[in-house]
């Protein structure tokens, strides 16, 4: 008998879906939360004192499978050095018509000079715009990427560049996963560590929103984040819906 009732399971499921949240996002107006290691447009980082991290070693250009990076190094002028090393990258160009956003350059960089932002929505309309120069890739004096007119920056996309964007931990050992390290980035300093694949990742601290939280209702029970499961999850959900009490201005 129960087997015959299975026929109606599809009806029940589709009916339940009427009340579930939609998976579709109205794209240009709203965007899905981006993954912590989203590969987007590159940035060239600077140290806290304003020095450029790039030392013109061309390892990124060497490792690039798409051959889209062109770097030329030059000796630092002794009176006003650009980078703390011996040399600096005085030409740095990335051709985004060829870049496949594989992030191998980020892995290769010995000084974490090149990392990726989360921006992937940039639609240039001519070829010269597609080749980003050093001036365009370098972060500004506050440590944020330059915003070019054809790029669609949203909140949070610029703030999360930095050394921990790398898949391997800075020191190359998995044991350092989740360990806070000093990135020395301009305007960033010490930042909470991203905790890889394990359950203990601190999305709050790293400023990322996870898709698993956004679509918790559509997941299998095992995949739902811990604090959204069961009765406690219902309470947490309600708490999140409550309007935040506005702080009185000092």
């Amino acid at each position, binding site marked *: 008998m129960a087997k015959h009732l299975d026929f109606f399971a599809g*009806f029940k499921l*589709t*009916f339940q*879906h009427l009340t*579930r949240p*939609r*998976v579709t996002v*109205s794209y240009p107006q709203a965007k899905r939360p981006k993954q912590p290691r989203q590969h987007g447009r590159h940035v060239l980082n600077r140290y806290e004192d304003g020095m450029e991290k790039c030392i013109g070693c061309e390892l990124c250009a060497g490792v690039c499978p798409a051959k889209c990076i062109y770097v030329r190094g030059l000796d630092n002028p002794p009176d006003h050095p650009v980078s703390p090393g011996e040399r600096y990258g005085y030409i740095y160009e990335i051709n985004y018509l060829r870049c496949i956003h594989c992030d191998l350059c980020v892995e290769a960089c010995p000084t974490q000079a090149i990392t990726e932002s989360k921006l992937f929505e940039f639609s240039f309309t001519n070829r010269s715009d597609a080749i980003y120069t050093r001036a365009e890739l370098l972060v500004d004096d506050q440590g944020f990427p330059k915003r070019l007119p054809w790029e669609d920056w949203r909140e949070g996309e610029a703030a999360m560049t930095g050394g921990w964007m790398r898949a391997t931990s800075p020191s190359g050992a998995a044991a350092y996963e989740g360990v806070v390290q000093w990135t020395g980035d301009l305007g960033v300093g010490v930042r909470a560590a991203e905790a890889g694949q394990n359950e203990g990742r601190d999305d709050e601290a790293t400023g990322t929103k996870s898709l698993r939280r956004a679509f918790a209702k559509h997941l299998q029970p095992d995949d739902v984040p811990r604090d959204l499961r069961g009765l406690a999850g219902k309470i947490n959900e309600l708490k999140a819906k409550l309007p935040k009490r506005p702080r009185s201005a000092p």
Partner: protein
Amino acid sequence: MNLLSVDPLYNHGVTGIVILIVLIKVLVGFAAIMGAVTLMIWFERKAISDMQSRIGPQRWGPFGILQTLADGIKLFFKEDLIPAEADRFVFKLAPYLTLVPALITFSIVPIGGTLNIGGHRVMLQIANPPMGILIMLAMSGISVYGVMLAGWASGSKYPLISSVRASAQMISYEAALGMTIVTVILVTGSLSTHDIVTSQAHGIWHWNLIRLGLIPFGVFLIAITAELGRPPFDVVEADSELVGGYATEYSSIRFALFYLAEFMNTITMSAIIVTLFFGGPAGWIPPVSHLRWVFPILWFLVKTTGFAFCYIWFRAALPRFRYDQVMDLGWKRLIPLSLGWMLIVAGFLIAPAWGLVMAALVLLASVFLSRAFQLGHGREIGPDSVLAPVGRRPLPGDVLRRMTDEGEA
């Protein structure tokens, strides 16, 4: 029986005012069904997207309600292509052969009670011909021609396969459909839809749904879904097999007509189900002095929308049947079931004793039938049989040898 004598509107002869009233009824009915179709298309897309956790149309109008209008305007201004191999006249004729029957079928549906306008009693249905519900069967028979001719006249293979499937499917389900309608006619004693509705007007226990047992309703619902070619019986337009089915070669406004007819049929058949089994506009009327005629219409709308939603629900919940499964269900299950149930109902209408005799006979027959199906199912089909699927037929020995041995040499 005179054609005019059924409708009380013609009791005092056909005068100018009567013709005017009829014209207004036709216009209002046409506008209503057209509006309902645009809403139905929107409702289907919205409901199915809700069931699939999508958003659905949202750009035009509030909740995307004007989406159909935008689609219609777009289709209207698209290029109208006729394939070189097409039979031009039939190709152009076919969309109308599906659309017009769809419109005509709606004309017999009673959507409300009776109104008094200037001394004339006006029934809230466009026509109440004495042949009544038979018109629905006739029209669904004609609309098969539309589909068939569309597929044939396209001069293309997929539409042709689709139209062959469509004609076979519609004809086989029409039998079950007809026999369930016969049960309704038997208890009503009249073919007219108006009489069918009034005979159910005295409360839920008089609805044919209950009065006939649930079986005729179930058979009718399944058969009508197949007749409409809607999921899960949409082998006619199975996208993954037949591109767009019989409408593959159609474009522009002709395609829109097919699309319109399909959804119009969905609404009309929902309305027919409501008429036959759910008392049509019958329902609770609140004790108010004015506008009492509005409530039957509301009841009718609510019931019809419910069935329209059911069709959408079927589409969301059920996977498509294989073609042989469609045929199996029609011929081996629904036709015997509806035939047996019709005999039992007929027996009970004569006398309870006759009903029990009929039930016993039907039970006996069903035992024989199921045994026959069992034997047929277990039958071995030899390699020489034309029924053996080509893929499973073993290759002759010499062919196999040539393919394997000589291929390597």
